[in-house]
């Protein structure tokens, strides 16, 4: 819709987008993993969003619309240029996850004590998320951190919902595997009995 008076357009755009600058910036940081790139990514996202504001349908999810633009800019400008080099190869993380779930009965561990973490999260979670390969990181980022629906996240990533679901599944498993040692040492995973 938005047409007509340019000042009115600017006001409506700012009312929608400016309150979301923080989530866009933090998402950009987690995608690019560099504050300079995140700043550029946010600026380009706002500019593109403003110039295509006519395409936004009022009443739909403005955050998802802005994320769609942000991710498109990221893919076009940054993704190909950045090497994916997490500290632990995904295959090794997958093996760790399998070892965790396949441990013999009787050696069970509890893995549900997140309440005990309090309000402040340790930096290990952030670091482990940033170390995930981009496709899985983006799925976890948009569904778990930004709480988009599967359908909205799939639209942002321009992939089928089934693809989003499998990336999310793998991303969560890899994230758990990379945090497992830390969680155990910190007492968040405890043997049952």
């Amino acid at each position, binding site marked *: 819709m938005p047409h007509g008076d340019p000042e009115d357009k600017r006001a409506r755009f700012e009312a929608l987008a400016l309150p979301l*600058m923080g989530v866009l910036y933090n998402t950009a940081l987690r995608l690019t993993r560099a504050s300079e790139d995140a700043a550029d990514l946010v600026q380009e996202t706002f500019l593109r969003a403003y110039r295509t504001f006519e395409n936004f349908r009022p009443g739909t999810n403005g955050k998802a619309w802005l994320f769609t633009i942000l991710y498109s800019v990221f893919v076009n400008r940054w993704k190909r240029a950045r090497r994916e080099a997490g500290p632990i190869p995904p295959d090794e993380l997958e093996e760790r996850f399998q070892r965790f*779930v396949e441990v013999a009965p009787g050696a069970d561990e509890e*893995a*549900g004590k997140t309440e005990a973490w309090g309000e402040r999260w340790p930096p290990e979670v952030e670091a482990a998320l940033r170390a995930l390969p981009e496709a899985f990181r983006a799925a976890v980022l948009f569904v778990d951190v930004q709480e988009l629906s599967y359908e909205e996240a799939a639209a942002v990533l321009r992939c089928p919902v089934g693809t989003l679901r499998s990336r999310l599944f793998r991303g969560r498993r890899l994230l758990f595997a990379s945090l497992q040692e830390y969680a155990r040492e910190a007492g968040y995973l405890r043997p049952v009995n």
Partner: protein
Amino acid sequence: MLTTGNHPGDELQQLLDGRLEAERRAQVEAHLAVCARCRRELAALRWVTAAVRKGLPERDVPAAVAAGVAAALDGADRAARRRRPAWVIGLALAAAAVLVVLVTRGGAPDVVAAAAEELARYRAADLPLQLETGDPRALERLIARSTLRFPVRVFDFGMMGYRLAGGGAHRLAGRRSALFAYEDAGGRRVVCQMYEGRITELPAGAERREHDGIQFRIYRTAGLTLVFWQEGDVVCVLASDGDPEEAVQLAYAKAIKE
């Protein structure tokens, strides 16, 4: 009915996220009652999802980022007020597209094509400038506050009849660049950019010239001329829609031997 040898896999995740139909959910829950492996897998998924959902630390938006966004929107507003008819934009972009096609034959086209497109967008009043100014020093001060890691000098083409219109920190085919835009009284336009790189990375198909010991690579087509040269670790490109030879002379006048 699921058996212990037939694990539900990513349906555990859908159970966790409340996306299973009631009948299927009952089947998966029945499986969980008899399968320690899947209970552990579900517990792991629940744990990590809660860990992320509970809230990661959020950084405040730096003031410079917010200011950059405001400046970009201001630039877009100014460009919209000057906007030319769609057919002018179409012609300009078509000219750039011809150049893209031509240089693509020679190899990676990104920088050449992108520089041509930026000129086309500027001609079409479709390239927002971070700062609109006729003062090269003001533009240098703005760029010095940006995240560019190389020293930038804004060319002054005043003696050649081109007036600085503005510019700022930019990106050229994904590379950080400094961009300066000019126009003359006859409506001809020049867009210069500087970025870290080597002219040896440019695609084939360029005319090569040497002037005062400096190597130049020149691409020409469809009324656009692009002249590249090296200054230290920085590549400079001058894109012009004016007379092709004049564009080369402008580059000769401003190039500094590394």
